[in-house]
């Protein structure tokens, strides 16, 4: 088990380095001139350009600039925002709380609703299963920006049950403000989790070892809990993990629709205003979260499936 963890952590570090390089070079190659963005349309003197290039190290070779950036990122320093002239790390930390809350809330909805729908569809054949299939097909087809608009118009504007914009103050008020965004963010992922859960439950139900348990007189509910759900938890964990990890990136659309001040909405804003240091910083944070969540899922996987850790120690 220890070997497995160490190996997995090393993979995580390598992945992060590769990702950071990809992010940095993508930004480097992207069209647009940071100095022009900085000056906002004024025509600079050559001396001014030279000063700015010196200050932002724009004349150093690519690899030197990358290493300087990665070295800073390792210490939590992502540089300075050209637009706001503030530390990128400060700007991110002011906004990341909202995103984390939103993603956690949406994840909770995805797990509870998705897994519940999947279990119902998997165990019950007939009408209930068909309802689940239709519902998940519909929700899978609705992108989060459409879900946001519908939820806003129905529950915020027409019914007035939830606020339309902002994050709110205090826990209960925040929860109220985040409910619609969380539902919008969760909407299509619920379908994915429900479908995977349904087919995992179906598959486990048809396993021979489930028949063994039935033949020994174990009550049906216990068989479902100890054998069907226990074994189906392995694929369910995988899909939930990947879904939750990808929500950090997907939240950008929803945050913008509901005017939430999170890192996703800020990423869009920074990209539009060519605030390269911010885009790089947020991208790296999102990738890091994705990679870490995936590593956690892998550890869970090893805990849930005894065959996995053996494979790793034998390798």
């Amino acid at each position, binding site marked *: 088990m220890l070997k497995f963890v160490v190996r997995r952590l090393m993979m995580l570090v390598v992945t992060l380095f590769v990702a950071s390089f990809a992010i940095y070079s993508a930004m480097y190659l992207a069209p647009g001139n940071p100095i022009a963005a900085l000056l906002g349309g004024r025509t600079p003197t050559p001396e001014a350009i030279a000063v700015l290039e010196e200050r932002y190290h724009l004349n150093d070779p690519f690899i030197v600039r990358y290493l300087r950036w990665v070295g800073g990122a390792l210490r939590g320093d992502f540089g300075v925002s050209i637009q706001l002239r503030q530390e990128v790390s400060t700007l991110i930390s002011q906004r990341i709380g909202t995103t984390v809350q939103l993603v956690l809330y949406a994840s909770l909805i995805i797990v509870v609703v998705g897994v519940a729908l999947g279990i119902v569809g998997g165990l019950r054949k007939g009408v209930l299963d068909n309802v689940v299939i239709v519902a998940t097909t519909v929700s899978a087809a609705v992108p989060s920006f459409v879900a946001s608009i519908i939820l806003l118009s129905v529950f915020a504007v027409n019914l007035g049950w939830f606020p339309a914009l902002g994050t709110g103050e205090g826990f209960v008020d925040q929860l109220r403000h985040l409910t619609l965004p969380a539902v919008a963010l969760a909407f299509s992922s619920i379908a994915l989790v429900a479908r995977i859960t349904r087919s995992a439950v179906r598959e486990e139900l048809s396993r*021979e070892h489930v028949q063994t348990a039935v033949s020994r007189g*174990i009550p049906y509910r216990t068989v479902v809990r100890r054998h069907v759900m*226990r074994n189906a938890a392995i694929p369910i964990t995988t899909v939930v993990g990947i879904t939750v990890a990808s929500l950090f990136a997907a939240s950008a659309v929803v945050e913008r629709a509901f005017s939430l001040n999170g890192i996703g909405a800020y990423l869009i804003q920074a990209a539009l205003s060519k605030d390269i240091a911010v885009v790089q910083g947020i991208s790296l944070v999102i990738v890091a979260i994705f990679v870490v969540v995936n590593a956690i899922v892998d550890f869970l996987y090893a805990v849930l499936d*005894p065959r996995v850790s053996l494979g790793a120690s034998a390798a």
Partner: protein
Amino acid sequence: MSDAFLELQQVTVRLPISGELRTVLHDVSFRIAPGEAVGLVGESGSGKSMTARAVARLLPPGAESSGTVLFAGNDVAALKGAALRAFRAEVAVVFQDPRAHINPVRTIGDFMTEALRTNHDVSRADAAAKAVSLLAEVGIADGQRRLEQHPHELSGGLLQRVMIATALLTEPKLLLADEPTTALDVTTQSDVMAILDELRRERGMSMLFITHDLELAGAVCDRTAVMYAGQLVEERTSSALHDDPLHPYTAGLVGARPRIDGDVVRLSAIPGRPRSAFEAPAGCAFNDRCVHVVDDCVASRPALEPLDGGSVRCHRAVELRGRLQEGAAHG
């Protein structure tokens, strides 16, 4: 009548196969006395396993069945709740493939003691102690360590011993052994079979032993029944079946065995391929492969008639008696 412990009366099972209900078992009747072992022999798809599943109430979803299965005088289909759990404890199943039939993510200890802990209110420690002593009986000495392991850490032979030990934990009165050695390699087959046979005899359990090995069935069973296309075609004491087969199909099976003590000759084979019950021709199910076929065999389906202490489903059984084996040898 009264000595029957397990009795099947005209059991017919139909399964939904590619959209329509098809007969997989047709009019199967036999009985097993207390302490008796009965072998059920047949080719793949002949309905052997389905018979065991009908007894154990493990028919696949959507199955339709008629006829009666009586266990200790009770109609198995009518059992519910506590009575059903009691039945499940008294009838233990040893499955063919232990690796598929044991949950891979739970420990051997969980698997073995689950029924005792769940249905018999035995404490975890007591159940584990009992499991260890039964593991010792099936030849696994370090039982305590094995209980902590997962199925993938054990070989197929060990797992099947675990399966047998587990089946015996609830002290059943009837064992349904569904090809318990087929998934094992040849060297472990005989060990596992010997253990199963010995433990069964010691405990005086009844057994329905399903195999496609006529020889093996003869070695461990008092009586042997032969199935073809979802029907019983012959059912007699194992030695009589072997020396004096009454049904042409049985004679074909006997003739298709290699002999260990004689000269090596080309083995005779039954022409054609095995039929499932729903593919069987009208009249006698075996008529399209039988070398002794006459018009009667196509016109009407023979009934399972008593003959010489057993029973046989063949119009020409009396007439062909004693001539079948030469026929098979030349056919």
